[in-house]
């Protein structure tokens, strides 16, 4: 993974001191809250319902055991002993003191971490496929480009006061695990006919109150033009994005209102003017960044095949975990392990300091010191020998981290909701917990198969409900919480926005409604290999509407 050089260390330290100065001025009353707000947000400090919240970046989701131990230390020393991994490959601490945030940042800087641009109207933490560098289907590792973008966007003088936040995601595989089509810029790394690397460029995707799938504006952008092209897009956005209404300020609205043809013309014209500028990436620099992300040297471990088969036969719990939470690695003797942060009835994405320490230990011992954070709020060990899976499973089980539900109905994404968030209209976590508990039995989950439930506590859609196979959106109606259900959304390479199925459900009825939807699916699927999403795309919303609201409602 990327390691800071002297320049990076000096930059991050200077940024921490700059922020310390801002906090000092705020506490001394020299800075009004409205002026301090964008400054603290650009360093990941929010004012939430009960306290300040600090959001720390885990760039493109990659970290090592030393960094994970630091995250545990921060949770223990400055917070209440836990942290919350988010859908954007960040970790949030819910209870830090404002006066201590500069100290936290100093501690994080010691392990090459920061909270730069985890919020604010600037270019945010760049995200990538959590299986990057390990997945069997990958064309090339997207992280070197994410790292180049991370550096280039840090404290960018022209782009720190954009109309609204700006999110970039990169994937290097045909299976899109980074949800690039619901980002402001989505980059799909690929090769052209000559084998040269470049990107398909998507612009204007996003969720929130106006969910839109991104439009492709370039089929192939040579890798050397990455920074020039992204600069062109962000400049056009900075100049022309709406600033009169924060709900219409994202680039997706500019794309929608300008039209993709005209916007593409503007971006290409800007790009033409700067394509041969000092932003052009030298081949040597790209390759030098790439070497930081080299695959660890994986020795042949063919004994794992037999060991795995034997262990699966002996232990059904291990067998179901290995089949759900281990995905094929590009090396046949290895697997990619998903550590579920979705225990049955738990809070999605939360991990205790002890659990973080345990994951660090396991990564160090069995996984080449590499850990990933997925946008689905789980942790990943990207390189584990099949021969070590049993030991890893046992160690995870001791830490309460061996839930065998990756991709299943209880692997729920949920935003913090009204339990923490100042923007929320409704709670998310208790709904996730109740659904998780209702469907908690391993047999029942296995019978249902792949199914993504995503829950947001307000229209800002941090829980990605628009791209959930089943999405739940908490709204407030006459002072009471109500959950609107969408079906058929998807965040992968066939991205789609879910359709609202009908009127919403009260908190005490929403789990029943989900169960009705699931039972309807089980009744109409062609066979157990037809997933919920495939079945929904085949039959459409009608059978689900009838099951939820009755024939009469359907007629009306």
């Amino acid at each position, binding site marked *: 993974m990327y390691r800071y*050089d002297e*320049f990076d260390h*000096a*930059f991050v330290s*200077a*940024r921490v001191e*700059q922020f310390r*100065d*801002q906090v000092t*001025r705020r506490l001394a009353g*020299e*800075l009004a809250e409205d*002026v301090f707000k*964008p*400054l603290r947000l650009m360093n990941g400090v929010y004012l939430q319902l009960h306290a300040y919240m600090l959001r720390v970046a885990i760039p493109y989701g990659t970290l090592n055991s030393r960094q994970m131990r630091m995250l545990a230390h921060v949770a223990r020393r400055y917070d209440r002993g836990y942290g919350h991994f988010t859908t954007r490959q960040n970790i949030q601490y819910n209870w830090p003191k404002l006066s201590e945030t500069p100290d936290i940042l100093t501690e994080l800087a010691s392990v090459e971490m920061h909270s730069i641009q985890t919020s604010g*109207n600037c270019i945010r933490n760049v995200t990538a496929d959590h299986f990057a560098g390990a997945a069997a289907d990958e064309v090339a590792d997207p992280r070197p480009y994410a790292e*180049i973008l991370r*550096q*280039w*966007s*840090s*404290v*960018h*003088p*022209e*782009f*720190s*006061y*954009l*109309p609204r936040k700006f999110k970039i995601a990169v994937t290097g595989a045909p299976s899109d695990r980074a949800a690039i089509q619901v980002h402001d810029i989505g980059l799909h790394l690929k090769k052209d006919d000559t084998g040269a690397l470049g990107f398909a460029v998507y612009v204007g995707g996003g969720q929130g109150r106006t969910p839109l799938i991104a439009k492709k504006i370039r089929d192939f952008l040579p890798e050397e033009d990455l*920074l020039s092209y992204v600069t062109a897009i962000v*400049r056009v956005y*900075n*100049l022309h994005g709406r*600033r009169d209404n924060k709900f219409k300020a994202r680039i997706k609205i500019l794309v929608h209102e300008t039209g993709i043809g005209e916007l593409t013309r503007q971006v290409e014209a800007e790009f033409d*003017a*700067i394509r041969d*500028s*000092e*932003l*052009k*990436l*030298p081949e040597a*620099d790209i390759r*030098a*960044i790439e070497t930081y992300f080299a695959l660890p040297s994986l020795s042949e471990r063919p004994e794992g095949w037999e060991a795995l088969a034997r262990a699966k036969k002996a232990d059904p719990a291990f067998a179901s975990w290995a089949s759900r939470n281990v995905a094929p690695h590009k090396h046949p003797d290895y697997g990619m392990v998903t550590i579920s942060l979705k225990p049955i009835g738990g809070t999605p994405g939360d991990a205790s300091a002890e659990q973080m320490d345990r994951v660090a230990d396991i990564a160090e011992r069995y996984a080449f010191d590499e850990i990933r954070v997925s946008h689905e709020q789980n942790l990943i060990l990207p390189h584990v020998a099949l021969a070590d899976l049993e030991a890893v499973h046992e160690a995870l089980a001791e830490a309460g981290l061996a839930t065998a539900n990756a991709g299943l109905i209880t692997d729920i994404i949920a935003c913090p909701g009204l339990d923490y968030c100042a923007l929320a209209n409704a709670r998310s976590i208790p709904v996730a917990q109740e659904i998780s508990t209702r469907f908690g039995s391993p047999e029942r989950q296995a019978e249902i198969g792949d199914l993504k439930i995503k829950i947001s506590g307000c229209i800002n859609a941090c829980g990605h409900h628009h791209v959930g196979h089943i999405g739940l959106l908490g709204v407030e109606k006459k002072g009471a919480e109500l959950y609107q259900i969408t079906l058929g959304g998807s965040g992968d390479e066939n991205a789609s926005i879910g359709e609202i199925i009908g009127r919403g459900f009260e908190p005490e009825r929403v789990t029943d409604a989900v169960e009705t939807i699931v039972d309807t699916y089980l009744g109409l699927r062609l066979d157990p290999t037809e997933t919920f999403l495939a079945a929904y795309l085949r039959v459409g919303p009608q059978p689900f509407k009838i099951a939820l609201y009755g024939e009469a409602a359907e007629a009306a």
Partner: protein
Amino acid sequence: MTRIWKETGFLDNDPWVIETEERKAGEGERAILGLDAFLGVVSDSNEIGFGVLIAPGEDVTKLQACLDRVALVALAFPAFNDGRAFSHASLLRGRLGFVGELRAVGDVLIDQIPLMLRTGIDSFAVTNEVALKRLEDRRLPAIDLHYQPAARASADPGGFSWRRRATPAR
């Protein structure tokens, strides 16, 4: 009170006046015209040394044909969070090759000034008291290492092509 600051310090006798209906440049003063007013005047005149105000929604490339006759461009920051003028500055310096004075006017705050300097803005009409105080003390909250090139001249710190190091003010 608004004071004009440059990296060399505060200016005591700045002649520029943003012209409005009520306020016109008088004896010994120089006028900053709105973009449309400037474009109207400039074609019928052989004058040089104009001052022009660019509002956030205006297109700076309209200045291209007559930029050599402009001595000062004032860029409006109506609110500290309206960042359009950062792009105007970048375009004026980088694309249009403007070498005259580039002035930030409006809501100019201390935490934005280091970024403004990097995009090529070199004079500042400052009203905010905290900003004035910090500028008097020469305490700019700047980071001297940069991860991207910008209009303002900088040094090559070695290493990756996109990195820069601040050089002292000219």
